[in-house]
């Protein structure tokens, strides 16, 4: 077994210069990154960023065109059998047997991995206990939140060293998303290395480190804190009583570089970062905006991501 090989790797996942194309579509281009043991690492990006392709290569379900990748020291091509035994995977689409019950699904996955539910129950207890009252229900009849908990239990039942989760919170409401991230934090406490993907920028702050991805490329990799601190533009929050007109007026102002809606405020940058708050204020007062507020604001990961997108495009 891999635990007896005597090798100790600080990096649990290594990815070096991985590229993959499907026919004429370049899915990922020259991606390199490392995930440390015990880390909660996020792949953050929209549809088409290449998150799923990268995960499927790591899961040994796809073979890359170029580059190498290892999981706990094992090569994703040569050692695929070993990797499959030590990794838990929750794919983006609900992957369980809809016509088996909750309990049957769990037993099935335990048996495939030559273990029993009883042997590793401790690991899944906190999650499974929430769906145990419905253990005789068919998986296809579960609500979205319950399906997610069952899929996670099944991915964990063989006590994996590494857990790979492909957009577990997509289409999930804000409450269930919070609960899911709490579950992930608990699993991380138990020493499991976690690689998770999401299109929700706000979830980046819940990871130790993240890779920001777009169109098959990594735009940046760092801790959420460093990413935000690395944003050097001067950023203003602006609002008035007519937000749509505000955004149009700001966009037609020659000193505005970007103006984007961020919840109840717009986040605005000036052409050069010398533009003062009072300049925006005076311009907007002339345009007859009322209840105007203009103030400095700290950037979020989403501001950072959008700035990177603008640099690329």
């Amino acid at each position, binding site marked *: 077994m891999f635990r007896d090989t005597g090798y100790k790797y600080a990096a649990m996942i290594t990815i070096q210069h991985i590229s993959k194309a499907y026919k004429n579509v370049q899915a990922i281009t020259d991606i390199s990154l490392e995930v440390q043991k015990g880390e909660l690492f996020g792949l953050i990006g929209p549809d088409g960023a290449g998150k799923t392709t990268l995960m499927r290569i790591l899961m040994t379900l796809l073979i890359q065109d170029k580059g190498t990748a290892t999981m706990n020291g094992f090569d994703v091509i040569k050692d695929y059998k070993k990797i499959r035994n030590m990794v838990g995977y929750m794919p983006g689409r609900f992957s369980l047997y809809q016509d088996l019950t909750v309990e049957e699904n769990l037993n099935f996955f335990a048996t495939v991995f030559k273990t029993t539910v009883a042997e590793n129950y401790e690991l899944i207890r906190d999650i499974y206990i929430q769906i145990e009252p419905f253990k005789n229900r068919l998986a296809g009849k579960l609500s979205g939140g319950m399906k997610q908990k069952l899929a996670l239990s099944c991915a964990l039942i063989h006590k994996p060293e590494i857990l790979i989760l492909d957009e577990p919170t997509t289409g*999930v409401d804000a409450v269930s998303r919070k609960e899911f991230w709490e579950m992930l934090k608990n699993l991380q406490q138990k020493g499991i290395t976690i690689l998770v993907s999401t299109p929700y920028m706000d979830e980046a702050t819940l990871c130790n480190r993240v890779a920001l991805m777009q169109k098959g490329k990594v735009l940046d990799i760092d801790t959420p804190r460093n990413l935000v601190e690395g944003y050097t533009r001067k950023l203003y929050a602006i609002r008035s009583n007519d937000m749509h007109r505000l*955004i149009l007026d700001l966009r037609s102002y020659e000193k505005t570089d970007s103006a984007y809606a961020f919840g109840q405020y717009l986040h605005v940058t000036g052409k050069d970062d010398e533009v003062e708050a009072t300049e925006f204020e005076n311009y907007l007062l002339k345009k007859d905006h009322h209840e105007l507020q203009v103030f400095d604001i700290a950037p979020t990961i989403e501001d950072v991501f959008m700035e990177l997108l603008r640099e690329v495009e």
Partner: protein
Amino acid sequence: METVIEVRNLVKKFGSFVANDHLNFDVYQGEIFGFLGANGAGKTTAMKILCGLSSPTSGEAKVAGFDIYKETEKVKRNIGYMSQKFSLYEDLTVAENIRFFSGVYGISPADRKEKQDKLLKDLGLESAKDSLIGSLPLGWKQKLAFSVAIFHDPKIVFLDEPTGGVDPITRRKFWDLIYEASDRGITVFVTTHYMDEAEYCNRVSIMNAGRIEALDTPENLKKQYSAKNMDEVFLKIARNTE
């Protein structure tokens, strides 16, 4: 202000399960109305009823002035619909998609030609007329999908999670389109899981376990629930589901 959606004591049951429990609300012309709720709260059920695709168990509702029991075909002609999952046919061209949806909504070929030219010009898509939808960048696709959903000048457009999985810039550009439609007097009825987008709506309703628990402007909801933002409002209302 003209009322374009009127819902009174609307109930929908599946067996003993109450998916919509006495819903009451009005939506006004030109309004951007956010329809929020946790998964399983009953949003999709209510939307299907308002689109004329499903009949309620009891209660009343009018959409664009038409009764949702007896006049479902008229309802369908006066609304548009778009979701992230279903919008345009990927293996048809831009022009073919427009022709298809024009047919569905009963636009005459002569009217179509004129409207199509204007639409492609406004979107800057004239050169892409004969391109397959599947080959277009996501941002263009979304713009076109939305334009096609309102091509027949409906009174109301229903948007079901239109921005899921979209990058943050494209997501914001999509909201520009929503504002423009609303300025033109089209009512926008939208669901989303992005709580920042709830802030962009004129009014927001939040469903929980089949009931509408709150309905007001984002500003008033934040005051009422002593919350910093809509995310907090949502968490306070929708916690303890399932």
